[in-house]
């Protein structure tokens, strides 16, 4: 929540606009929080909120890319598989090939960018529908991940690599606020990565030519083309960025869990798409914001953490997530039709 506000904190008008624009989802987020806080004993504690945010930080990073794809009226369902593959590549390089930690990072990142490049090339230049192109790379990525790992999980025993996501910033004197009262609260560095990347995405979409072109292409590709935008190039670039972001996600999970299993990242695309859509981004492209997406991410986070803390069977969590998506989209559609 804190970082949404910081985006627009200088201009009170912007704050008002932000709340107006995202009224439905913010209300939903507040209601969910109230329900969990009232019904569930250990939900609204500082340590649980920090755990919840940390566990959903990688989703936030992936959402930065997913938002761009959906803004162009397209989609990227290969994100989960790219997270798994890049994480696995890093683990394999470090553990099996005893590769230098820095080199492993660079190669993982390159793998992510290359997958993004393939996605973008197929979609922008070969005109393959985004769903099909990324479905194909999803399958290829997961397959290669399993080939590299031979189906077994790889452990990482490199302190430098494991520190990438394992580092925590301890807040001294907060022992009383923690779950067991014994250790002080700490903010995971993953959360900071996510905030930085969300802020960069906001800058990219709102303060650069690149962002302007993305919205233009999503709004009306033909018009964008005739106004002189290289629509192919600007359709390709977001996928490359998404690939890079997924690599960051893969490295984070590999480092956090100190190892990679070949199923890492399965169904990550569902959470990312859900968050972006709940956040008010139109599936037909052209409209959607980072601020709205953050609310979407938080709703997904609150829902999965809250139901876990409440002790609800995970099978029900999928049902609730689906219901929330429908409700969010209906609210969005109703508000838009009112305006007209």
């Amino acid at each position, binding site marked *: 929540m804190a970082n949404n506000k910081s985006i627009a904190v200088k201009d009170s008008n912007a704050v008002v606009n932000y709340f107006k624009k995202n009224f439905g989802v913010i209300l939903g987020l507040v209601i969910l929080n109230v329900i969990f806080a009232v019904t*569930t*004993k*250990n*939900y609204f*504690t500082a*340590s*649980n909120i920090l*755990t*919840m945010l*940390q*566990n959903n930080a990688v989703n936030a990073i992936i959402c930065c890319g997913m938002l761009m794809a959906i803004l162009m*009226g397209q989609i990227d369902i290969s994100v989960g598989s790219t997270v798994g593959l890049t994480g696995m590549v890093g683990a394999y390089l470090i553990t099996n090939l005893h590769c230098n930690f820095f080199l492993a990072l660079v190669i993982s990142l390159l793998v992510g960018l290359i997958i993004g490049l393939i996605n973008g090339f197929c979609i922008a230049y070969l005109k393959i*529908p985004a*769903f*099909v192109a990324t*479905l194909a790379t999803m*399958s290829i990525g997961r397959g290669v991940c*399993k080939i590299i*790992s*031979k*189906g*077994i*999980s790889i*452990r990482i025993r490199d302190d430098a690599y494991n520190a990438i996501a394992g580092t*925590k910033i301890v807040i001294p004197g907060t022992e009383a606020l*923690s*779950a*067991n*009262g*014994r*250790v002080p609260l700490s903010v*995971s560095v993953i959360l900071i990565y996510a905030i930085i990347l969300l802020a960069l995405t906001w800058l990219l979409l709102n303060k650069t030519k690149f962002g302007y072109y993305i919205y233009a292409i999503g709004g009306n590709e033909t018009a964008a083309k005739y106004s002189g935008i290289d629509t192919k190039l600007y359709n390709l670039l977001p996928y490359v960025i998404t690939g890079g972001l997924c690599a960051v996600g893969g490295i984070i*999970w590999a480092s*956090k*869990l*100190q*190892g990679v*299993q*070949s*199923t*890492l*990242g*399965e169904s990550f695309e569902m959470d990312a798409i859900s968050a972006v859509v709940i956040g008010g981004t*139109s*599936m*037909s492209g052209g409209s959607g914001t980072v601020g709205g997406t953050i609310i979407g991410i938080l709703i997904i986070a609150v829902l*999965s*953490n809250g139901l*876990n*803390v*409440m*002790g609800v*069977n*995970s*099978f029900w969590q999928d049902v609730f997530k689906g219901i929330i998506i429908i409700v969010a989209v209906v609210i969005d559609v109703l508000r838009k*039709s009112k305006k*007209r």
Partner: protein
Amino acid sequence: MKNMKKVFALLLAATMVFSLAACGSSKSDSKSDSSEKKEEAKEDSGDKVKIGFAPYTLTNEYFSAVLNGVQEACDELGYELVYNDPQSDSTTQAQQVDDMIAQGISGLVYIPNDSANARSVLQACKDAGVFVINVDNVIKEDDYELCDGIIASDNEGLGRLSGEWVAKNHPDGANILIAHLQTAESCVVNVDGFWKGIKENVKDDSKFKEVQVVEGGGATDVTYKAVSDALSAHPDIDVIYCINDTSALGAIQAVEDAGLTGKVDILGKDAAPNGKKAISEGKMVQSSGQCPSQMGYDGVYEISELLAGNKIEFNVAIDAYNVDKDNIDDYDLDAWDEITHKNK
């Protein structure tokens, strides 16, 4: 607005079509492995005997270990091994078994994806005169007539060993969190065994409380998230029982993040290489070992007995063994189980 609706409807339709396509698209290549020892081939024609292996999936180290055992026995006997990866899908598995029958296998080492739907596969093998040894995931009792032999781990026994460990090391009771894989019958039996292991070994079982069951999907990342949420809800957890070592690795990390390392005992299952390493590092306290390689190895030897016209014992249970910090040095940390009973 109208246009947008159309686009949305189209997208929705496309999503449905492609998710269907995605379900059906998990074909995988058939792999054939042959060995050099031709002189041991038993068929009169001089062709090598072909053995099929239908695993649950091959993207799981446990089933890779079964495959290693199957491969080793085939190498020893001079059989040719044919196998596919059904990727946890029972429809795909049934098609792959049909393909194997068409390739002329004499016997099948069969781990059904869905024991309730095994009948059609068993019937197809019976009709083709293919011997079937069912391993690991046991078929339903009314299908026994269609099968030639069963070799399985004692799932209840595996859980029971872990339960006994908890009873012994927490005599005054414990708050227990289960990181489950609720869709797998073997895991349900396993967790039942865990509770039996506790209840049979303590005087007052009311002090052993199941504070929560979380779904870990048998995966490290899913378990990590679920366990860290559960630790928020119940900071007083003493014991976490995970249905495999892979998910236990996620629990270890979650406990570490909550600053509870050393205060929560984490138990796994399988005594997989990763689990054994965690025990030797003191991050996990106990894991009940299975013998996947031995199971695959024995399966092929049972087929060889049947091919030679001999009788075999129909139902063989492979005992579980306990691995904890007291005996961890006796085990090879890099391997699953060793094939201890060779060439019976």
